[in-house]
């Protein structure tokens, strides 16, 4: 078993963005990219908690592979090992919700998980059966990166999220 991590992002109001369109910095919940051309990540859990203060905010959130992967310095969010005694692998996954050079773009076909929920008081949590986790392989399109972002439609509201994943 590899080292398990939590990639979390707090208090982001996503912008509804069409497929194959640049995801603008800090307007989506994050991307998860392999730290090398051979790294494999298994996604075990996705959680989002709505923080919209006063108005109904049905948010069409999608976990999808990216047809254009981010490049440049990654920023945003926090990446923490779940087990404090874990020895970190030599290379870490690349995570964040800002990208200095190339912005990620969600694939129009490779949507993995639709998690529509209302950010006004709503919670959504998906957990994979061990051994049945969607994976990220390498660091190039389209297997090498997934993103969690808002699809067009709905009325997005502020939310926080975490993605639990394992570096295999």
């Amino acid at each position, binding site marked *: 078993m590899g080292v398990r991590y939590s990639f979390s992002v707090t208090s982001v109001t996503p912008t509804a963005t069409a497929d194959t369109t640049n995801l603008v910095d800090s307007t989506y919940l994050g991307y998860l990219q392999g730290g090398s*051309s*051979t790294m*494999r990540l298994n996604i075990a859990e996705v959680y989002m908690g*709505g923080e919209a203060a006063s108005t*109904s*905010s*049905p948010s*069409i959130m999608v976990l999808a592979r990216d047809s254009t992967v981010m490049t440049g310095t990654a920023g945003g969010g926090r990446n923490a090992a779940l087990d404090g005694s874990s020895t970190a692998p030599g290379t870490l996954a690349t995570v964040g919700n800002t990208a200095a050079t190339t912005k990620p773009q969600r694939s129009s076909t*490779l*949507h*993995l*998980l*639709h*998690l*529509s*929920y*209302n950010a*006004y*008081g*709503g*919670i*959504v*949590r*998906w*957990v*994979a*059966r061990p051994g*049945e*986790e*969607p*994976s990220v*392989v*390498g660091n190039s399109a389209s*297997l090498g990166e997934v993103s969690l972002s808002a699809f067009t*439609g*709905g009325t997005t509201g502020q939310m926080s999220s975490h993605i639990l994943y394992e570096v295999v």
Partner: protein
Amino acid sequence: MKSVRELEGYLMLDHRHGAPVPDEVVVHAGLPVGAGRGLFESATYTCKHCQRVIVLGMNREKPATFCRGCQHMICDPCAAEKHRTGVCRTFDQVIEEALAATISPKEF
């Protein structure tokens, strides 16, 4: 004896303390009518061929296809492709091919 239920994941949508999600939105996302109201819990499965996650629904009404090639559940588009070609190509094979194209023999 193994059961396909051993392959299932879990989805929870909790709108007990906030506004619901309109049915047209949840249905568009592949969820059943009513999933955006109150507490919704459902089993899911990960398609062995493409890794898309399918929500089975409250009464497990979402039809799922069992692939006898890989002994796993697969989604509707992959089931159609399997029916058309007769080939079971799992995502693990896709990964192996991607890695083989990346890693030269010298690196093994």
